[in-house]
């Protein structure tokens, strides 16, 4: 890319900044401190723009655009993987879950780390040795290139779109809560900034934006955790003792347990916060979710793509170890962020800002800095919010790059052009990549706005489920099983995707109006009895009881309002999107069924449709993935 173009980088990104400026209306930061929020956001956005400006000069070939020319070091890639992976869902979401449900939130974070063992032992190095730009490169190597590229690209686009939609909608809501701009503007800001990075800076800019974001995230978390932990002399039992002894935490557990809490002492209620079962009620669901995480991460296209950016298999190995250290270390910090937020801010206050608990981290930052009316408190809030914003943009950039590479490199170049014997010039390849980026980016913004207010949590689960049930079995078996072939890949991709999506569509993740209405009626029927109880408590002489009763009133008012809203919303609706009154299957995550079926489909397909080429190529594939002979070399700059 030449200088004539690079000035457009600045123009486009400045445009996005311009959209973002007249904002900060009713954000979590108070009025007089708005300038802090604005300054911190502007600083971080300007930093990423500068990165893009520098990166744009280095992006000349398709290899630069998709994989930064293979010139990223293992350590840099490790930070970039962490930046790609610590999405808003895992960084704000897990701290939130811990602040609301205690132990279960922490247990949830473990699967996200263990997933990288699968990546490290089975996937990263062979993929680096055999692949070039995309997941389908690996599949197409031994098998019929046309067929496997088509199914591979479709699966990559499916997984990325699910994940992308979840990020756009979640990000839109989050940016709205954090800085107070409206939902559509937030989605457009995220989309335009991301498009700026990817379009002009390709993988070089995406990588560096992810690295910068990961570093900022780790610094912010370390500072907060230190400040939370210092008063306890860095004693873990001392800190947790204080958490479980806190009346706010005990009250939260009492709310969660409902009638079961009546005979428990305050100490027992607090201790319950450190025990399993407050969030995950069905063990099988929890195991199924664990399977999707542990095997799905190795099939996520935007994660796989990161291994093509390093020069050798040894650097790929090194990058996973770095990523595991950063991601694992971060989740250990999250333990303190979550419990610290529960103790200092209080679960109820956090849930009042965002029912999912996503504001736990930002609110804790504000509290630690001195509260809502202090300069430092608002600076910390602004900093964490800006990092959250950068997180969303960086994760979305990685996803768009993965989807665009499947579209341009696999479908357009691989199938339509080379598949028909038409050679493609390097310039055409880069142009195809940029056109695909614009298409995917525009799509992401459109879907993000169209899906406003939808329940998108299901989409993240779905992305992991499809990655684990379709992509993972196909990649694993083509790398390690001699008889794997085109028939197996095509059948595995189709069965894995269809089963995972199908089971999710009939799962409890969807909204079932009949059940919602029944619950609403139950809330309304029980309202009177609860009011009497609260009125009695309000008359009490114990100030703690009165405080609790006041909180209970607020919670009850909210529940009643929601029940009435639900009754109106679903007035004429009895069945879910799929026409079901209740879920066919009680599993929230289909992994435990769909992953074995995906493997079975690859095996059956391979055995049913023999393919001589795939078997003949086995020696080459196996020799190459183990020795690194012919692995694509980094381009010199």
């Amino acid at each position: 890319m030449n200088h004539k173009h690079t000035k457009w980088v600045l123009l486009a990104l400045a445009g996005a900044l311009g959209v973002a400026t007249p904002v900060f209306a009713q954000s979590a930061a108070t009025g007089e401190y708005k300038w802090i929020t604005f300054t911190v956001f502007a600083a971080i956005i300007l930093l990423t723009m500068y990165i893009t400006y520098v990166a744009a000069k280095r992006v000349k070939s398709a290899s630069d655009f998709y994989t930064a020319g293979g010139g990223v070091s293992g350590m840099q890639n490790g930070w970039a993987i962490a930046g790609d992976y610590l999405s808003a869902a895992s960084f704000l979401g897990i701290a939130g879950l811990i602040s609301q449900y205690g132990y279960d939130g922490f247990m949830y974070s473990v699967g996200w780390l263990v997933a990288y063992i699968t990546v490290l032992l089975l996937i990263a190095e062979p993929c680096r040795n055999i692949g070039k730009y995309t997941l389908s490169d690996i599949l197409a190597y031994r098998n019929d290139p046309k067929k496997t590229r088509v199914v591979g690209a479709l699966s990559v686009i499916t997984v990325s779109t699910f994940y992308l939609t979840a990020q756009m909608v979640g990000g839109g809501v989050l940016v709205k809560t954090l800085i107070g701009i409206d939902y559509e503007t937030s989605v457009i800001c995220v989309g335009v900034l991301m498009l700026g990075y990817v379009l002009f800076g390709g993988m070089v800019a995406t990588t560096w934006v992810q690295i910068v974001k990961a570093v900022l995230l780790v610094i912010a978390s370390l500072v907060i955790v230190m400040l939370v932990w210092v008063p306890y002399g860095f004693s873990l039992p001392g800190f947790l003792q204080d958490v479980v002894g806190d009346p706010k935490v005990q009250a939260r557990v009492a709310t969660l347990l409902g009638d079961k809490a009546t005979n428990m002492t305050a100490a027992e209620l607090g201790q319950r916060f450190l025990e399993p079962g407050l969030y995950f009620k069905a063990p099988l669901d929890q195991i199924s979710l664990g399977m999707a995480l542990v095997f799905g991460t190795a099939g996520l296209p935007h994660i796989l793509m990161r291994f093509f950016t390093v020069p050798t298999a040894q650097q790929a190995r090194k990058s996973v170890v770095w990523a595991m250290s950063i991601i694992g270390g971060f989740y250990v910090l999250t333990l303190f962020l979550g419990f610290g937020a529960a103790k200092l801010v209080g679960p109820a206050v956090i849930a009042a800002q965002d029912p999912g608990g996503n504001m736990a981290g930002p609110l804790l930052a504000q509290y630690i800095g001195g509260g809502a009316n202090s300069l430092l408190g608002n600076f910390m809030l602004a900093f964490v919010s800006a990092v959250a914003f950068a997180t969303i943009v960086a994760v979305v950039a990685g996803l768009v790059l993965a989807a665009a590479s499947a579209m341009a490199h696999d479908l357009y170049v691989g199938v339509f052009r080379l598949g028909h014997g038409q050679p493609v010039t390097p310039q055409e390849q880069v142009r195809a990549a940029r056109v695909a980026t614009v298409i995917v980016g525009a799509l992401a913004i459109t879907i993000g706005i169209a899906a406003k207010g939808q329940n998108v949590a299901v989409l993240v689960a779905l992305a992991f489920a499809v990655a684990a049930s379709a992509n993972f079995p196909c990649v694993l078996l083509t790398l390690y099983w001699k008889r794997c072939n085109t028939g197996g890949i095509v059948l595995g991709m189709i069965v894995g995707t269809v089963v995972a999506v199908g089971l999710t569509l009939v799962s409890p993740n969807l909204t079932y109006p009949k059940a919602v209405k029944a619950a609403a009626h139950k809330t309304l029927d029980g309202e009177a009895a609860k009011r009497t109880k609260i009125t009695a408590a309000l008359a009490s002489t114990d100030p703690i009881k009165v405080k609790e009763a006041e909180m209970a009133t607020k919670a009850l008012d909210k529940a009643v309002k929601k029940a009435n809203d639900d009754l109106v919303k679903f007035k004429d609706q009895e069945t879910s999107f799929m026409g079901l009154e209740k879920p066919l299957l009680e599993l929230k995550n289909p992994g435990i069924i769909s992953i074995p079926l995906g493997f079975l489909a690859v095996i059956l397909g391979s055995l049913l449709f023999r393919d001589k080429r795939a078997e003949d190529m086995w020696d080459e594939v196996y020799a190459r993935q183990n020795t690194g002979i012919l692995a694509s070399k980094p381009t010199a700059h």
Partner: protein
Amino acid sequence: MANPQTTDWSRLIADPRFQALHRRKQGFLTGLMIFSVIYYFLLPIGAGYFQDLFKVKVWGVINVGLLFALSEFFVAWGIAWYYTYYANKHFDSQAREIAATHEKGGA
């Protein structure tokens, strides 16, 4: 990219050094993978079906479940470290040796 015709892949595969590398690698990776999967799934299984055990307090308010969840991090890091140590020591030099002999059809 070099021309794939220049390396005789079946000869490389048949090389006893490659066979030795393959056996060692396969055994090591399978064992480590099975161990890590079992160790991970003990956590959701324990939290779901052995709650009484997970609730036993061992260090102040810290219970077995919390310690076990924390141990998952150290075990994961341990596996990553051990794999890297083992691969750097045993796999890389052998793979380089084999590649040097066979790349571009040599020896």
